[in-house]
């Protein structure tokens, strides 16, 4: 009996490993290659070795020192990326939190319609909306302005965030609102003093989602911004490929640097990510 049980346990373990190992390799091998390129000298970058003969940090020095034509605005562009990501995260949070509060807690009329429309936006891939978005931004005279990118990303991120926050809001006990109303809270005080503090885990998750979405966005940045000093780093990285003789090792070194902040953010907030994004998924 005991033997049978442990056999079954071993086989379950083996099955998990059978699935797990390929998934881990699948994820890590490209990252490893990114890293390999980044620490290889230019002439041996494509040699195909598993570890470079003479690993070097020179590529990072070039990147940080902006010592290459493609990298002449590296710090500015990294700053652009940060600005766009943080502004998108903050604005999306503002839009989504207030919308979710109004729909879920204040039960404003038309809330259901807004929710349905929000869902509807995801029937159309964001890429299809790129050209209309370009036209809209041009109408408002926002082309070549980082605000264009920020507003576009807020537009794309908000509907999903509203959904997640609405679901999470619905789980807060209704009596809390009633108690606060009797205690004398206005809707704004209810929002500020009761609702937001209780929604923190979901807000962190949703804010991080919007922030990473903007950080990783390429297409909209490519379309809406064209001045070198306005570009986010993601678009600038793409420009490396515009020449025949691309400096791969620098592209990879920059890419590696670019990948670090999201990894750090995700790691810092992963506790919230899992609980926040699944909040309201099941009735507890």
């Amino acid at each position, binding site marked *: 009996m005991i033997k049978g049980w442990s056999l079954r346990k071993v086989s379950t373990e083996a099955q998990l490993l059978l699935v797990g190992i390929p998934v881990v390799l699948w994820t890590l091998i490209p990252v490893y290659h990114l890293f390999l390129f980044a620490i290889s000298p230019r002439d041996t970058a494509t040699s195909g070795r598993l570890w470079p003969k003479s690993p070097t940090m020179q590529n990072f020095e070039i990147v940080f020192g902006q010592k290459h034509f493609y990298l002449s605005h590296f710090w500015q562009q990294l700053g652009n990326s940060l600005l766009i990501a943080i502004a998108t995260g903050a604005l999306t949070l503002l839009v989504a939190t207030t919308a979710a509060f109004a729909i879920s807690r204040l039960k404003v009329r038309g809330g259901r319609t807004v929710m349905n429309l929000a869902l509807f936006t995801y029937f159309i891939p964001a890429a299809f909306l790129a050209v209309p978005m370009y036209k809209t931004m041009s109408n408002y005279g926002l082309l070549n302005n980082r605000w264009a990118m920020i507003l576009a990303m807020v537009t794309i991120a908000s509907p999903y965030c509203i959904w997640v926050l609405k679901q999470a809001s619905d789980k807060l*006990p209704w*009596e*809390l609102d*009633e*108690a*606060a*109303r*009797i*205690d*004398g*809270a206005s809707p704004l*005080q209810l929002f500020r*003093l*009761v609702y937001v*503090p*209780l929604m923190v885990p979901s807000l962190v998750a949703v804010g991080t989602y919007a922030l990473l979405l903007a950080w990783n966005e390429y297409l909209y940045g490519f379309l809406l911004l064209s001045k070198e000093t306005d570009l986010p780093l993601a678009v600038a990285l793409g420009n490396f490929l515009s020449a025949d003789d691309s400096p791969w090792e620098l592209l990879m070194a920059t890419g590696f640097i670019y990948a670090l902040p999201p990894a750090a953010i995700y790691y810092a907030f992963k506790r919230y990510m899992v609980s926040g994004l699944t909040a309201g998924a099941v009735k507890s």
Partner: protein
Amino acid sequence: MASVSFDKIEKNFGKVKVLHGISFDIADGEFVVLVGPSGCGKSTLLRMLAGLEEISGGDISIDGKVINDLDSKDRDIAMVFQSYALYPHMTVGENMAFSLKLRKAEKALTEERVGKAAKILNLHTLLDRYPRELSGGQRQRVAMGRAIVRDPKVFLFDEPLSNLDAKLRVAMRAEIKALHQRLKTTTVYVTHDQIEAMTMADRIVVMHDGIIEQIGTPLELFDRPGNLFVAQFIGSPAMNVFEGTLRSQQGRPWVEADGQQWPVGPVAGGKDGQGVHYGIRPGDISMVEPAQGIPATVVVVEPTGAETEIILQVGETMLTLVLHGRTDVKPDQAVGLQIAAEKVHLFEKSGGQRIG
């Protein structure tokens, strides 16, 4: 402190009418319990008084002033919820001070009020704890503390003890009653538990299907229930009720049921041959020798220590009898029943209104 008055209160949820013209007054400092089975509209009525539900018809006034269109916060009431509704991200002290904070009260005043309430409720050692670190009874006390700090005109309680275990419920019951005796604040208390209603209330309002069945002090309701519903709802174990026919000869009335003659007190009205519900409380029946009373058979004996509950069968009718003390009767034993005729309640067969 204030009086409360309900005048022809109606409530509709869409096409469904849940309150049909409720009218009654609550005196200053009175402890009134709204009691009834679930769905009778008692909580809805309380929530309308709190300003959490709109009023479909009629007027609610506090101290003679109609408050229909006032916001909850301007009605000067405080409410204790069944689920406590404590703010999870605030400490006990912050929870209790929240309403004063919203009113921008001075810090010294807030501290004084919170300190006083905490002392009354024995919470002063818990002020820095969070609600999740408290037991059910402590949370309930914090919810009450939050209400006391407000020093409102009226306290509202919405089934505050339903989430507690039986022992704690009895303890909290006494605590709430003691609190009312100390503060003398007008209190409206909603419960479905008639024992809570009996033990705590100055006056009980029995509700059923959106109407008031009867209003009275606990003992009035117990001794002279106005109709069959109240008779069966108030009292534990419940009143024995069965159908029979009222007979009367030479001014001496009795009820005929199950082939037996059941005694009726002298005051009972009604006319000969009328169909009635015959009601007698379990404590108003006693056991005698089989030959002397109405013949019955013991079915179940349930000793509870101080009292013994006995279930008996007379013909097709099952009766409950409560005996103070103990007994050595056994199931299937034949006994005689004697009924205190002056304690008998008669109700019309149709409508269930009290006769006499």
